[in-house]
């Protein structure tokens, strides 16, 4: 019964993915002007341009170009970069790993720091640690990524020289960018954790737990957190998209060779194949991420599991059938 739901969600995701691919493709082609001309700059003469255009298949009608693209894409061929002259798949491969590492570090930072601060704040509500942490989280939410990145770079890399200014030769090169990237998410997670935890602690079943004789720590961990974390987890899944947005900037500031920086280069170089492939990659990751998050939420919250089973039209599970007391 959960599988039917999963299948439905998967189909939806595929539709969105198809839409995204189409959108990217169309967006990039409606730019006026022949990309070949832009590529060749001053050296362009009508003959060479015409020849190259035909070679690259850019004179074909749009839908033909689209199908060609899709058919090569599924075979792993995303074309050749206009500006760098190399096959796109190769360029992306290495960059993807860097971005992935960066995103994972940032996410880990955001979640560990965010949840930790949130819990601590909720427990010590309205006292000094609470105000301190909430102040930090406010800073996190309002500091734009590029500011955080430049601040960190200036203070810790340039002035204090504790960490490298740019590049990823050693893993330490990921630390500052990860913090800059995850800073924003950490703030959001901290605030959300605090508020859901505070709300949860007002629920009736917390009273029941206390009436059973549970101590404050047990109540917190075994009852409150289990419920409070659910909305926080969904939020973390949504943030993934934001992490990719921020990666574009962080990679630029810290000169990390990642997908984000490639995208920026692709735009300045009017490099359609590269831009296309990076956009597709980014959105696919986001779509997969939210799919995963959805499934995770179902697994963790038994109420949702059952609600979804019912709405998916699966055969009525006996548990959905209310039994009289």
């Amino acid at each position, binding site marked *: 019964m959960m599988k039917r739901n999963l299948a439905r969600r998967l189909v939806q995701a595929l539709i969105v993915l198809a839409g995204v691919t189409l959108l990217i493709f169309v967006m990039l082609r409606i730019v006026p002007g022949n990309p070949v001309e832009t590529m060749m700059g001053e050296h362009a003469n009508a003959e060479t341009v015409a020849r190259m255009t035909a070679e690259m298949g850019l004179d074909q009608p749009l839908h033909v170009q689209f199908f060609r693209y899709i058919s090569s894409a599924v075979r792993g061929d995303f074309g050749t970069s206009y500006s760098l002259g190399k096959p796109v798949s190769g360029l992306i491969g290495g960059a993807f790993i860097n971005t992935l590492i960066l995103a994972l570090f940032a996410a880990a930072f955001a979640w560990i720091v965010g949840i930790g601060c949130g819990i601590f704040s909720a427990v010590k509500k309205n006292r000094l640690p609470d105000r301190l942490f909430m102040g930090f989280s406010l800073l996190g939410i309002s500091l734009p990524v590029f500011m955080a990145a430049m601040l960190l770079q200036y203070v810790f890399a340039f002035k204090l020289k504790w960490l490298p200014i740019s590049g990823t030769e050693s893993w330490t090169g990921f630390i500052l960018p990860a913090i800059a990237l995850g800073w924003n998410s950490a703030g959001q997670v901290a605030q959300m954790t605090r508020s859901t935890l505070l709300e949860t602690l007002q*629920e*009736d*079943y917390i*009273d*029941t*737990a*206390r*009436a*059973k*004789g*549970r*101590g404050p720590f047990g109540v917190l961990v*075994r*009852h409150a957190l*289990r*419920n409070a974390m*659910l909305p926080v987890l969904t939020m973390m899944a949504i943030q993934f998209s934001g992490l990719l947005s921020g990666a574009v900037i962080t990679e630029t500031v810290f000169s990390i060779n990642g997908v984000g920086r490639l995208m920026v280069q692709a735009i300045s170089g009017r490099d359609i194949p590269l831009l296309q492939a990076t956009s597709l990659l980014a959105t696919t990751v986001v779509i997969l991420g939210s799919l995963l998050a959805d499934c995770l939420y179902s697994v*963790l*919250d*038994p*109420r949702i599991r*059952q609600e979804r089973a019912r709405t998916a039209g699966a055969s009525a599970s006996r*548990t*959905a059938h*209310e*039994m*009289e*007391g």
Partner: protein
Amino acid sequence: MNEKTLEIRGLTVCIPTEKGVIRPVNDVSLEVPAGSIVGIVGESGCGKSMTARAVMGLLRYPAKATAGSVSLCGRAITSLPEKERRKLRGAEISMIFQEPMTSLNPVVKVGRQVEEAIRLHMSCSREEAKARTVEIFREVEIPEPENRCGCYPHQLSGGLRQRVMIAMAMVCKPKLLIADEPTTALDVTVEAQILKLLERLRDTGTSVLIISHNLGVIAKVCDYVYVMYAGRIVEQAETNRIFDRPAHPYTRGLFRSVASLREGSGTLETIPGVVPNLLRLPAGCSFSLRCRQCGENCRRIMPDLAETEPGHKVRCFLAGKEGTE
């Protein structure tokens, strides 16, 4: 055995607010003799739930018990450190709450929740705890107890959930069970069953303190009744006596309004006025503003609880006199 399971003397709970201190429980004294069911009745907001919470030690900040003592089977518990009190909760004295809907942790199976109560106070293995859970489910008449253990709260009906709550409260065989509006959220047929269950518990040695605004519930199962108004006890007597000869104008008003419903006399009798604002109580009797028999002194001087006949106390200057009703 003439021992008193619960003895409360002069209990007062204070809540500081921006507009002043309010006392939802004001100098309350009551007893629950061993092997009996005692009821506290009153309108919403009269302080009955607060009293129960104060006894359990479950008052929510900023409410605090500032005066009085509570003894369980002769042992003073208000002076105990929190750690000791926690050992008593769930084991010697337990409580069930009004809303079975929200009083159980929604993401934990009910079997596990009852097992938690067991393992908090008795050292035993998981299997033993599980077996004991099934046993207690059977005792509270939950059908198919083994299957039900694996259910989540949202999969059970209201009546079943309340039975689970009772099971959880009784599993360590407490001396006192406090039931705060145990049947208010249930429909009438289920209510009768739950009340019968409470009577059975009393017969097996647990004293029960029932809190309700429902006179029918009180009439059906209680041996002795306390009537509360604006934080104070205004009348107390054996059930028969209080229903035969209610002395306090408030109690009379309560009974009248219910009786008029049943007899279909055409007019719905009500007590004029609204629940008092605890910040603006008169210096004298709290009920004086709504009392039809309000006399000269009533508004200025607070009457004491005086015994009008053995076992029957009233807090009213005009009690015992046949009023103008």
